């Protein structure tokens, strides 16, 4: 998509204990990252249902970012085991129906990884910018 005016809308589900704190660290460290991301704080990335992710795409998100604790660091011990199962499955299913699996990204970002959070958001925003608007949104507009 060569549309240079395209401003992606990215929804981020961040876990309260690691990635949200990591985002906080990025903030207090005054690290710059693109403002296209809207954050929803969840108590655990394992509480994010694939339904929520699909709902985000339905409602016009161009990308969805899920941030959780590293495996083994989950505040609830094994919540993120479920996150990775669900999201890996959803990515593959999205690929099957042609919804571009790259629009869904899962990353483990700890509370100490402020720079990693900023970098992940920068990379993901750049990627979505390059991919263009979500095909679901284009389909809805055409209908």
């Amino acid at each position: 998509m060569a549309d240079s005016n395209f401003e992606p809308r990215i929804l981020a589900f961040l876990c309260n204990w690691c990635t949200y704190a990591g985002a906080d660290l990025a903030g207090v460290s005054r690290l710059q990252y693109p403002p296209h991301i809207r954050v929803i704080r969840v108590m655990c990335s394992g509480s994010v249902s694939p339904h929520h992710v699909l709902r985000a795409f339905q409602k016009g998100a161009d990308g969805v970012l899920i941030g959780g604790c590293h495996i083994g660091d989950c505040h609830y011990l094994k919540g993120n085991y479920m996150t990775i199962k669900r999201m890996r499955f959803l990515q593959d299913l999205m690929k099957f129906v042609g919804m571009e699996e790259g629009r869904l990204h899962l990353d483990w970002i700890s509370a100490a990884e402020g720079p990693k959070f900023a970098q992940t958001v920068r990379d993901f925003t750049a990627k979505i910018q390059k991919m263009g608007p979500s095909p679901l949104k284009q389909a809805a507009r055409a209908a």
Partner: protein
Amino acid sequence: MERLRDKVRKLLAEGKAGGYIGYKMVEGHPLPHFFTKDRLSEVDEAIVPPGDARYPLDKLLLQVAARYPKETFAIQVRGCDERGLIELYKWGQLDPDQVVLVGVACPQDQADYCECSGPFPSVIDYGEKCRPVPQSQRVTRVEGLAEADALKEWLGHFGRCVKCYGCRDVCPMCFCKECSLEHPDLMSTGMVPPDTIFQLVRAIHMAGRCIDCGLCEEACPADIPLRVLYKKANALVKDLFDYETGSPTAVSPWKVLGEESTLQTKPM
């Protein structure tokens, strides 16, 4: 057929089963019927439905079992029905000690039509084992499409949906009392076709649960190839978690958190 009837008669007469869920011809139509000891003569009319006439007997059993929780019931099962019962045991909906199987093996043309990987149950009282179909050609075809073409095709299918909920209502594995497809905060209401994600949400719920009976696709008034979607969802669960839906021993990946996680996140 007599072998099946004898077995049912014996089960009912000896009180090993409080009832038998099977089929009976009613005015030329094969319909599900509940046979009991009190009307034992009806068993003479018990049949295996001809052709591809099928109903979600598992779902009927769920209702009967909920009403008579202490009773044991016999039920006619095909390969898919038995997989369904096993999944229902796993999800705590039925007690395996209270179900007696009366098995029916599907004929080869039915197995070919369904692309069924397990067209016979563990107990066979009617029919002969036939050749299973390991790989679905319908799934393989869609897998071969470019992403944009696949999306176009699926959007075309999803756009025909009239939101009748027929796929969910006929599904023997849909036992929830509340359905997220009816939740106004998760699914837009008051429009047809429904949200594009409607079928995808169902596909997610069917992953590792779909027993591939194909009743959803037969019930669908819009001819949406739901079966392709669910077959793929199951294949993904097999690839990712090595879980075969309906396996009597394996534990569903959606139930356990596991001792360790070996899956890796996908690189950006």
